[in-house]
């Protein structure tokens, strides 16, 4: 036991002596939470609209004023259609609105008015959202114009279905609710899997692994001692992330905290086992970094549902995502932390994660070579 403790102390020294890395490891989660929480958002605000008003009458002036008043849009007036094209190509506007000539007159008398929305659809989601918002403002403005001018016109039977929309769990539709669980998965994966694999391989590369293996301590304890500091670091980061998300981002822990922590612990073990497995198959630090970077970090960012919804992917990628432990972790955390569901609803995720943890642990410990070539 005493030997084991001194091994753990050695590993802590290794980490703490590299101040730059430890600083990054501690600052990274804070920065990611702040960036994802405040900066990485799809909420529309102050989108630039280029308005071409060929009519310049009361109706169009009133409607443009409504756009100006809206927090979603910033209005730029332009004078010719050619100008709109140039503005789009420079990327200075996302939407443009063209009012045809004699707008108010046509709207009230012939009904043959023309208002056109042109959206820069290079970003399809933003374009759709902007068009939705702009159409709503326009529709409201148009019906006001018609209503104020025509009184006592023919009333025809109209049917209106009014949807009452309710946003569950995240009424303000903040991006942070979606990203916090993902950031947790990303950080834990980075520290547990990537760092562990690199630090074990470094001992192989510098030749000190031979010294360790020749010492009277059991190989299993060497591995456990390697994992302990990273386990501790993960716990520190987990606490930082949770505190930040509750107190800075205002994302509450809606469910059971104990359940959340247990799910995270299972995931940390899985990630540590993955790191160990990688260190078994490679011999150089560069290879360890590239494998953990390409085979772990890239899929974690792109296939785990962190940024991109899994349901939108083709079936084959959805199957691949099922193999990633981080996918199940993120799903479980979203359910427990954001939706606040009972343990019964996350049994599937917990079961899969535990299964993966056990299998990976057994395989990587079995494959650990106690003799060097």
């Amino acid at each position, binding site marked *: 036991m005493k030997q084991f403790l001194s091994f753990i102390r050695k590993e802590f020294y290794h980490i703490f002596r590299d101040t730059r890395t430890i600083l990054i490891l501690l600052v990274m989660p804070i920065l990611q939470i702040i960036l994802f929480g405040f900066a990485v958002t*799809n909420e529309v605000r102050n989108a630039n609209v280029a308005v071409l008003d060929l009519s310049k009458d009361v109706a169009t002036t009133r409607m443009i004023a409504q756009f100006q008043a809206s927090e979603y849009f910033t209005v730029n007036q332009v004078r010719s259609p050619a100008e709109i094209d140039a503005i789009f190509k420079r990327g200075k506007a996302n939407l443009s609105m063209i009012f045809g000539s004699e707008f108010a007159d046509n709207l009230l008398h012939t009904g043959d008015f023309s208002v056109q*929305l042109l*959206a820069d*659809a290079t970003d399809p989601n933003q374009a759709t959202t902007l068009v939705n918002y702009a159409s709503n403002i326009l529709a409201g403005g148009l019906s006001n114009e018609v209503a104020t001018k025509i009184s006592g016109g023919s009333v025809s039977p109209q049917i209106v279905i009014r949807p*009452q929309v309710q946003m569950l769990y995240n009424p303000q539709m903040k991006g942070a609710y979606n990203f916090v669980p993902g950031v947790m998965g990303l950080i834990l994966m980075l520290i547990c899997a990537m760092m562990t694999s690199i630090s074990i391989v470094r001992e192989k590369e510098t030749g000190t692994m031979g010294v360790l293996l020749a010492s009277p301590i059991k190989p299993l304890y060497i591995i456990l001692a390697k994992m302990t500091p990273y386990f501790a670091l993960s716990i520190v980061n987990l606490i930082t992330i949770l505190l930040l998300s509750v107190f800075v981002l205002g994302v509450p822990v809606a469910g059971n905290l104990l359940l959340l922590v247990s799910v995270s612990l299972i995931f940390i073990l899985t990630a540590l086992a993955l790191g160990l497995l990688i260190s078994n198959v490679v011999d150089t630090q560069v290879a360890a970094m590239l494998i953990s970077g390409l085979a772990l970090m890239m899929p974690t960012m792109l296939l785990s549902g962190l940024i991109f919804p899994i349901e939108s992917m083709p079936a084959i990628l959805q199957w691949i995502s099922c193999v990633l432990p981080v996918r199940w972790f993120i799903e479980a955390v979203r359910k427990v932390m954001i939706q606040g569901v009972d343990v019964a609803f996350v049994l599937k995720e917990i079961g899969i994660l535990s299964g993966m943890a056990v299998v990976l642990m057994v395989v990587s410990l079995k494959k650990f070579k106690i003799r060097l070539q």
Partner: protein
Amino acid sequence: MIRFLIEKEFKQIIRHSFLPKLIFAFPVLMLLVMPWAANQEVKNIRLSVVDSDYSTESQRMLHKIIASGYFMLTDISTSHPQAIQSIEAGEADIILEIPNGFARDMAKTGFTDVLISANAVNGMKAGLGSSYLASILTDYAQELSIEKGGSVSSLQPAVKFLFNPHLDYKVFMIPALMVMLLTMLCGFLPALNIVGEKESGTIEQLNVTPIKKLTFILAKLLPYWVIGFIVLTISFGIAALLYHLFPGGSAATWQVASLLTIYLYAGIYLLVVSGLGLLISNYSATMQQAMFVMFFFVMILILMCGLFTPISSMPDWAQAITAINPLTYFMQVMRAVYLKGSSMSELLPQLFALLGFAIVFNVGAVLSYRKTN
């Protein structure tokens, strides 16, 4: 002198067991898989319906919703709590509740309410999903009005989506993925290069030669510049063959000028990222450290460049950060040229910004390279 140094660098890369494979396999893999994964398109929204009215009208509405193709009916629940359960179990994304008296109210007053509850953990999905649903309901209401002999005053603007008329998310992501590819390959490899020589001790041999600092950095830079062009050309090929995406739009509107513009900007951008990589490499003592510092910067740069979420949605302080991020400018150039066919005269600010970054980072790399400790 510099010729031999460059020859050495190329030989080291070509003889490496892993790097040449990586340079060819990474772009292919990335562009084959990632456009499908990096997809924020909202489709296949899983719908749970509570139909308390069960009338001909409500059933017809359901058929219309399913026929739209955006929604998949997962279950018909008998009550609101039951529908909430299917959201909590992760089986449904959105609930449509049709209250008892839906058809009766519609016949009597013309007004009728329905309740939409969306799982807003992913705010964007909930927002777009519920607005799709609402617009289908509006269509249905108009259809009913016309059947009843009413006239529909269509106070809707004409909408046109430019540059990406099919609202294809892949088209939006492919130029961005090319930027990511160049950043990762030509940023990380130089970052590991000089520090690798430090770790293996070969840097001492270079330090005792009369090589000038500038020559040394240039020789380190050039191979990655060439690699960058190879990677970019492979990417162009894949985008054209697989996704029928050409610089300046489609195969028909393809322009040599657009292609040359991209190569020019890419040439400068490669100097920027490789310079950053070398700068970090100079300041690092171990490969692990270099890797982490680089990872740290690249992560921030990628999140803050408008790749995933629009810059205009960010708060002001975050927009200020994007202004000092080289990726922002290159991302804008790639998307503008690829999708909108913008020409160089429209992208002059980006040109100057990238040139500035290239000079700063590379002068920094030359100055920070020290031959003595």
